[in-house]
């Protein structure tokens, strides 16, 4: 399973990766991103707003995400985040190393 600390929260680096992955599917606002992570994880992972927004702003600050104000599905003003070229490269790196790491862990755990 994902890297989790003792309180069951996502460790920072992992959350960043998940956010980048979700945004790679299309621009989305904070609420949408949190929902997507929740649904896509089969309702296992829950992102606390208290860590979501600082993470979004940190990624924006580092140039992984772009942000602009837009209008949401329910016709409200919302801040939409999109992937930058730099964010896309980072996502590729992270996915690769995640794949290696998780298959390695799976092999160890699968040993009878």
């Amino acid at each position, binding site marked *: 399973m994902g890297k989790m600390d003792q309180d069951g929260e996502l460790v920072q680096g992992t959350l960043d990766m998940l956010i980048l992955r979700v945004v790679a599917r299309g621009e989305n*606002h*904070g*609420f949408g991103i*949190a929902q997507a992570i929740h649904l896509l994880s089969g309702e296992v992972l829950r992102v*606390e*707003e*208290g*860590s979501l*927004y*600082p993470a979004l*702003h*940190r990624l*924006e*600050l*580092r*140039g992984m995400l772009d942000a602009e104000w837009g209008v*949401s599905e*329910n016709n*409200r*003003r*919302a*801040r939409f985040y999109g992937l*930058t*070229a*730099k964010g896309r490269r980072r996502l590729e790196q992270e996915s690769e190393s995640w794949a290696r790491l998780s298959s390695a862990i799976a092999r160890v755990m699968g040993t009878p």
Partner: protein
Amino acid sequence: VSLPGPLRALGFRLRALLGRDALDRSLEQEMRFHLESLIEEGRRAGLSEEEARRDARLRFGNPLSFREASRELLSFGRLESLAMEVRHAARRLRRAPGFTAVALVTLALGLGVNSALFAVLDVALLRPLPYPEPDRLVALWEIEIGRGERGTVALANLGDYSVPAFESLAASTDMSLDLTDSGEPETILGQGVGPRFFEVLGVGPVRGRAFLEEELRDPGAGKVVILSHRLFSRRFAEDPGLLGRTVRLDGEPHRVVGVLGPDFRAPRDIGARTSSDFIVPLALPPEIATNRGDHEVNVVGRLRPEASLAQARQQLEAVGQSLAQSFPDTNGEVRPRIALLHDDLARAARPSLLLLVGAVGAALLIACLNLSNLLLVRSLARTRETAVRVALGAGRAQALRGILVEAGLLALVGSALGLLVAHLGLRVAVALAPAAVRAAEARLDGRVLAFSLFLAGAVALVSALLPARLVSHLRPHESLRSLERSLAAAPTLRFGRALLVAEVALSLVLLVGGGLLLRSLARLHAVDVGFETERVLATSVNLPEARYPDEHARLRFFVELERRVGALPGVAAVAFANRFPLRGGWSTGIEPDSPIGASPGEHLSADAQAVSLRYFETLGIPLRRGRTFTAADREGAAPVAVVNEAFAARYYPGEEALGRRFRRGRSAPWVEIVGVVADLRRNGQAAKQEPGIYFAAAQTSLYPVHLGELAVRSGRDLRALAAALPREVLRLDPEQPMNRVLTLRESLERDLLPRRFAGILLSSFAGLALVLALVGVYGVTSYSVSRRTGELGLRLALGATPAGLLRLILGETSRRLALGVALGVAGALALTRLLGGLLFETTPTDPATFLATAAGFAAAGLLAAAVPAWRATRLDPTVTLRAG
């Protein structure tokens, strides 16, 4: 467009910093959208509106805390919290415009004058001389043991003074020559220098070469000159072809062998308003150059790298003693003395500068005390607020930081304003400073800026010290219970009172000093010099021997010049002489026919001038008895003289001087006194009325001095006349320059310059100090009144009269004022003797000045205290009691 990472981050942070409100709004809006989306989700899941809202809030957590986290992320963190402190401090200061204005004015003046002073000191005392290894350069002079007077050096002794500790010694004299090439003739100043002059200094011509040995050995042979860069560019347009060509100096061709660099300064020019425009080989007549009794040259030397000043001194003392034994007539009483050139040049400036340092230092100290006092009063007034903040957990460190930031902000803005003051102050200082101070070279450069910033920091720290102490001793529960009974405030308040006493005392010392100087200046100005100064122009014309070989030729020139100038429009009277008053002196030994009032064998001498017919009329010197000169008093006629009353009183006391005779020496003819004129102070207001003799210029062989000066009296436009004079001289002799034309009043003012400099300086600082001290008195009284509002209201309610209340409040302040004034008078009594040399007919303990200053100060202080006190008497008891 994607910027490189760090730059992008910086951009974000800057935007966050500048658009703080926009950022806040943006974060808030983003959170609200999230919250509303959660509510909507709840509603869709079938919850009631209220349940959906509560659920969403619970899930969402505390938006403030993560908004804060995001903001922290997007900002500069600690740096920004400092920026916030600064913003808060600025807001607090803006809310107290009176306090801020007073503090800023205090600081601007205190820091400004200090920066200006530093700029002056920097060039005058601190900056090294413009020569390589200046620490090895020394000035050498001779003293006469009995009189201790400092004098120039006999060239004949120089060889003996070349002791082993010296690498080299060089002689020079001040000279002036008339330049009559390319353009209007003019008199230029320069130096005649002996061998090794450039070697000693370590700098020489940048074009061409220094003098050759044979040129220095035999200056008469082929005349050579080295020009200053200033003259080279002003007169010769920096024409490189000038090298090797000749220029006419004093009517003789001199070959230009070198040109000095733009930065070259002769040692004699450092600290002087003049600058040398030429250097020629030193040419003293052989009888002077070989006479050990003829002291004619200035000497600079360079020590060997390994030699010390003390060694050189020791070796020179031995040489001086052996010379005294070998040549008792000329060297018996003469000894050589040396000092580092830098110290020697600074010596002349030192008294003025020390006065400056004292005055400015005191002013800065007062400014510091004042700011400290103001900040103290302010933080006392805010004790309750601070106590609340500390009790709520704001932390003492933060409260302390607040005070420090406030003081720092004030100091910074104050020093910026101070630089403005310094800029103006420097211009005043340059205009007023005596030449020796070298103020003309002072600039507001990086060093001054650094000094000013350093000073601002120091002032901020020092003046924040007491208020900070107050806060760190603060006990919130006590302060909150009752400000009046706050234990922390009491000792600090005592400090505040002590500050006030110190401030009053210091200001009084400055005021007394300034008062003494002003009184002395006023006395000087009231002195009548005894001749007209406003309407008389004077100038000098140096007639070179090449064209005017003897006194007859010079007399002819001046008689003709007198005739031509007399014909100019607006001229009331013209005169010529060897020296006019305020322009130097000339004296002669005399032997009266019956030397009353003189011990036998005593050498008598009197100031003596050769003057033209209308000399007395031109200067407005009244005739007391007898007659002045007439056209009949010419060469070959009976020798006559006019004397002044001081002369008559000195040599013929109680007798009629008219008709008596004296002679200038045993072989000189007897001269009859034909007139007695009023006394005058030849050397300005501070000078005495000395016995004086006037000879008729036409009787040239009687007193064959160099005629060289012209004076014109006019009722009309002096400026136009001043411009016309050199033209008349040129018409008479196209190669003859004239020196600067000044009114005698201007010469007089120049003589008074050092005293005026000191007077203006000290009294302006004293004025500044007075204002600061009054602000201090006002501030402390205001505070103490506001602190006691409740008590005063109670007294009023219980029937105290306003007058009684006034007495109560003023009594407290006047005790402190009296203590400060007493300390100030004591300090002034101890310090004003330092002014001794600058005072004129005023003792350093002049009772009138002391009394007037102390009384005036006390009155002004009481008045400053009376304003807040009077306000207290108008309190409405019902209001104040409720508030208390």
